[in-house]
């Protein structure tokens, strides 16, 4: 006979059986029975956030840095609606999150009851899947299914909506091992013939380029190892997307740096000129492709992705392979070795020579100053001070994010947490809290802009409550820097509403929250502040007051092709931004 438990106990037991050790949440009327169950146990730790939006980003940071599922618990109505941004963020970046939401009792659903919202309706388009549990006897199965759906295939967020009466009712419990999903079976093994064709195509390449993304990080550390091995045996160059950083060691000489709108000149030029593109776990996002009609015009394209809907969505490819990156890479390496394939040495040599001329342009150079802190200088110094440490980096969204992506060199996956697809300002601080919960002894830094940082500033209080020694490194230019940059480049320098005329004093603000606050206003103060930030126990805000007018380069202007990159402020785009370019985001 199965054990009879209350709905709340079933939820807790399912969490424990799924190996959950921490959840991020905020209580409220509809989830009180669940909080009562949490109170009575010690296996699952609860982190009390300050706003539910923060909870989802914390779960994302936790998930992205561990490879495990991040878990959120919020109440009905506003608790649930506050999670929508984070859920959309997790969907766009394929982050496994299970979000438990309270709901009014089943007999009140549809009555506009207090704190009622149509949570499954609202979250349907921003989750991988969602459930409304109406019967306590379905609860255990749904809980396990939610974890399975969240983490398998292309990961994503799953919402489980829990009416209050279901949490009180008694029902049977089933363990996770009994689950076999009737419809959802992601394809993990690639089609062997497609993989063969892909490898044959690579072997014939004269100007190959690996273009890899977040799918490698999601596949797990083995995928990154196999990728490194395969790239090494071929001798081909590789570029990574924003989400893929760390999937290939950045110090390796075959790595060209990040690709895309603010990617490296050499990566984008190589993307434009390659003859065989090997896309593994990236999705031809518009930040990467630029103008589609001019995207890698003379290339054959291989696309390995676990999600069939990613294939031929933006760019038509020649050899699609649906499968898990690690499995497919393993097969690719085996075939390459069995058939003793090797790239044409002469062609590869010429390709590398060409790449070296692009590299020689040194696209990250900037005009430094003795009097004013250049944001690139501050971020580069931060990287140099932390590169030998056990460090995790989160970011907010904007110029600082791109500079962090350019200047930080990641050697391993899961070390870089950023909001790529959705571009959610306010992501970095709560994400850093989630990362620090998972890695209490490691150094966790949120590279932030002041505007983004203010969007989830309330979570400083969470960091202090749990004594999480996160470091917030605010690159403060008083502007929404990326908005300002686009206004300069596209709207005649009319800086509509991108300047924050009244900012808090971040040092005093840090003190008010119980953190340490530091500030640098001159270039010669930067190193000292970084050193102090790193040596101070507990959470720190470092307010780095930087040049307000600096722009982020290199840049592919919107609507332009990869070979039309602007390298610096002296260089104007080849043509004024086209009308089609103007309407792009």
């Amino acid at each position, binding site marked *: 006979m199965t054990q009879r438990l209350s709905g709340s106990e079933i939820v807790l037991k399912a969490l424990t059986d799924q190996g959950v050790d921490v959840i991020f949440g905020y209580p409220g009327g509809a989830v009180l029975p669940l909080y009562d169950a949490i109170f009575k146990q010690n296996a699952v730790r609860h982190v009390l956030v300050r706003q539910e939006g923060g909870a989802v980003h914390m779960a994302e940071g936790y998930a992205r840095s561990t490879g495990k599922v991040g878990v959120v618990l919020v109440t009905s109505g506003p608790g649930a609606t506050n999670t929508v941004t984070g859920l959309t963020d997790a969907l766009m970046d394929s982050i496994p999150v299970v979000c438990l939401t309270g709901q009014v009792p089943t007999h009140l659903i549809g009555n506009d009851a207090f704190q009622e919202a149509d949570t499954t*309706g609202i979250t*349907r388009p921003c989750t991988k*899947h969602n459930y*409304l549990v109406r019967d306590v006897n379905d609860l255990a199965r749904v809980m396990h299914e939610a974890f399975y759906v969240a983490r398998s295939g292309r990961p994503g967020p799953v919402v489980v909506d829990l009416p209050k009466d279901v949490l009180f009712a008694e029902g049977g419990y089933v363990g996770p091992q009994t689950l076999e999903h009737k*419809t*959802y079976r992601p394809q993990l093994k690639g089609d062997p013939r497609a993989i063969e064709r892909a490898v044959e195509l690579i072997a014939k390449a004269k100007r190959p380029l690996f273009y890899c993304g977040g799918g490698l990080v999601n596949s797990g550390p083995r995928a990154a190892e196999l990728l490194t091995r395969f790239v090494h045996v071929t001798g081909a160059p590789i570029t990574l997307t924003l989400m893929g950083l760390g999937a290939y060691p950045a110090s390796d000489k075959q790595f060209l740096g990040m690709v895309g709108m603010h990617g490296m000149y050499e990566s984008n030029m190589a993307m434009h000129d390659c003859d065989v593109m090997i896309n593994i776990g990236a999705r031809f996002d518009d930040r990467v492709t630029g103008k589609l009609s001019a995207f890698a015009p003379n290339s054959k394209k291989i696309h390995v992705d676990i999600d*069939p*809907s990613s*294939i031929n969505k933006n760019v038509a490819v020649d050899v699609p392979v649906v499968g898990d990156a690690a499995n497919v890479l393993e097969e690719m390496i085996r075939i390459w070795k069995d058939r003793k394939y090797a790239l044409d040495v002469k062609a590869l040599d010429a390709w590398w020579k060409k790449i070296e001329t692009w590299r020689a342009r040194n696209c990250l150079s900037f005009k430094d100053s003795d009097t004013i802190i250049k944001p690139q200088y501050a971020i580069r110094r931060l990287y140099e001070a932390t590169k030998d440490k056990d460090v995790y980096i989160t970011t907010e969204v904007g110029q600082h994010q791109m500079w962090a992506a350019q200047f930080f060199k990641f050697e391993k996956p899961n070390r870089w947490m950023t909001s790529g697809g959705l571009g959610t300002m306010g992501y970095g601080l709560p994400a850093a809290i989630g990362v620090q919960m998972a890695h209490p002894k490691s150094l966790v830094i949120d590279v932030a802009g002041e505007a983004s940082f203010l969007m989830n500033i309330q979570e400083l209080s969470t960091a202090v409550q749990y004594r999480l020694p996160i470091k917030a490194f605010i690159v403060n230019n008083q502007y929404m820097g990326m908005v300002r940059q686009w206004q300069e480049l596209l709207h005649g320098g009319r800086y509509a509403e991108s300047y924050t005329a009244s900012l808090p004093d971040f040092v005093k603000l840090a003190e008010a929250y119980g953190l340490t606050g530091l500030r640098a206003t001159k270039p010669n103060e930067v190193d000292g502040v970084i050193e102090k930030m790193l040596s101070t126990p507990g959470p720190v805000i470092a307010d780095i007051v930087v040049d307000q007018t600096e722009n982020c380069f290199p840049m592919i202007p919107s609507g332009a092709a990869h070979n039309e990159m602007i390298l610096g402020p002296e260089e104007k785009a080849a043509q004024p931004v086209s009308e089609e370019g103007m309407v792009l985001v």
Partner: protein
Amino acid sequence: MSDAPQINRHTIAVLVDNEAGVLARVIGLFSGRGYNIESLTVAEVDPKQKLSRITVVTSGTAMIIEQIKAQLERLVPVHRVRDLTK
């Protein structure tokens, strides 16, 4: 002569679990991604296994139709997607 890719009409049959919200998932996918629904029918086809069939007539380029099918297949309660127009 225009070299724009040809737009074709397709009838797509989607076998789904007959559970709450499944129709909303399918039509939400169409509206959210900007695909057109020209006609739509829904009926339970297997009461024992609680299966329904949603039949959608839509139109688009070959790439869009392929994308619609892939997106439908990605939905968790979807058993099978058949293009009846092939």
